[in-house]
């Protein structure tokens, strides 16, 4: 029963990822990315990382992907797909990707996969060698590790985010005309 669910979520993730890669409509790939991220969150639950799963949904599905959708919807130029109609309301609202080549995308994805998997294989995870803690949630472990062992990366990331926030504020402010 559990295995069926596991393979169903794997299938969901893979189908979503393949759709992202192969579809030509940018909006479809954004929604397929939603499926993939949800599937990955479910796989995190199977790995016993419930906090990670929920934060994946909150950050990636609820934040990043919505921003991606905003970017796609608001910045796309209306390209005439069916040139027979000039009236705006009779045109379909598909947003097509600029390049049609499938191989470029496959090549890029394969390269990314290779690089990331090499990075993960070579990384040294300190908690791997220790026995699994019997704590009811993973939150305690995550919090303590962040504040002790991984304090430097944590601080670096917070400074990076602060810089990004300040930069976004600067870009968004009204430009003063000379």
């Amino acid at each position, binding site marked *: 029963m559990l295995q069926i669910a596991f393979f169903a979520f794997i299938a969901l993730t893979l189908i979503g990822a393949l759709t992202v890669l192969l579809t030509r409509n940018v909006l479809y790939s954004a*929604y397929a990315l939603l499926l993939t991220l949800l599937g990955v969150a479910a796989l995190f639950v199977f790995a016993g990382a419930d906090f990670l799963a*929920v934060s994946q*949904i*909150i950050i990636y*599905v609820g934040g990043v992907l919505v921003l991606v959708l*905003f970017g796609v*919807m608001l910045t796309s130029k209306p390209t005439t797909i069916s040139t027979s109609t000039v009236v705006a309301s009779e045109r*379909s*609202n598909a947003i097509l990707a600029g390049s049609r080549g499938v191989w470029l995308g496959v090549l890029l994805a394969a390269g990314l996969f290779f690089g990331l998997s090499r990075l993960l294989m070579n990384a040294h995870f300190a908690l791997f060698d220790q026995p699994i803690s019997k704590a009811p949630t993973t939150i305690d472990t995550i919090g303590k590790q962040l504040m002790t062992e991984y304090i430097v990366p944590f601080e670096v990331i917070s400074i990076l985010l602060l810089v990004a926030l300040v930069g976004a504020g600067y870009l968004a402010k009204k430009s003063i005309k000379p």
Partner: protein
Amino acid sequence: MELTVLVIKSLVILAVFGITLLIATYSTYAERKVAAFLQDRIGPNRAGPFGLLQPIADAGKMFFKEDFIPAQANKWLFILGPCLAMLTALMSSAVIPFGDSIRYGSFEVPVQGIDVNVGVLYVFGVVSLGVYGVMIGGWASNNKFSLLGAIRAASQNISYEVALGLSIIAILMMTGSLSLRHIVNEQNGFFQWNVFTQPLGFVIFLTCAFAECNRTPFDLPECETELVGGYHTEYSSMKLGFYLFAEYINMFTSSAIISTLYFGGFQYPFMHQVHDALVDSLGSTVGHNIATGIGTAVLFGKIFFFIFFFMWVRWTIPRFRFDQLMNLGWKTLIPLSILNVVLTGAGLLFDKFKYATWLIVIVMIIMAATNAIKAPRRKPVTVPQL
């Protein structure tokens, strides 16, 4: 005997699901009755006694309307939109603890769909998913007004999620747990309710809940004067019904979460005395179950009050302008909730003192009072003599 637990558990889940739908159905009736009361009208009173069959008649009407899909709309996404809205609306009531526990023999089954350790975060995840129903539907309609409404809804939801999360962090700091049941059990005793320890957090949370539900005064996504009908302009029949219904389900869930987080959930004053008296007179099984039932009834009383409050505000406060909405979210609520977190932390570090945030409330009241006193008096209007 494992089967009995499973049966009770599935009955609880079915009951939660059914009650959510039933309350959402009758919220439509209640909304019209409350609106009628506030506007000095009678309201629906034709279908059945007191118009009680009105929601069912409305649903029947919705089903028999023409189900129209615009020619250039993206057909599958157009259908997917309302389904997603409904799905995400129904998902979040799973983690709300509706009561203590039901005893059967030697088993104790908690009155709750699932008791997860990350309950609060689960609610957040589902709320952040709720944007997609509106966005997909609005984009798939292939209509400028729908797209504008969808983008408004999404940006509003994202902006207010930040303040919503920050206002809850203060509670999490006091409780030390993400489980909703644990948060309820922590509010043991009337003055331990989080509304008394976190008055500012409660106000921020309530405002953000209004914005998340797209209710007036924050119903910009369906603002008729600017956007025709907002994201559901192109929808008809039961697809439109699903969008409207999802809004009422969201209202019920957010009322339940407000009562759980800030008003002690199923706790009420003198709860333990009542529980002990019932157990003494009726035995440990029946007495305990009846005590649980009273707690659940009390929780539903609180939920109904907040649903009424949603409707009350709808007919009291006019709609915000969009820039006002964004200014309120980003420039007022987020800094205030950060201040709230800092002061709560200071109080907890100092001496486990939970009522530190009253300081902000007092300062704010004094500032408002001085502002009101210093403000120049308005001159009385002089009617020109003719």
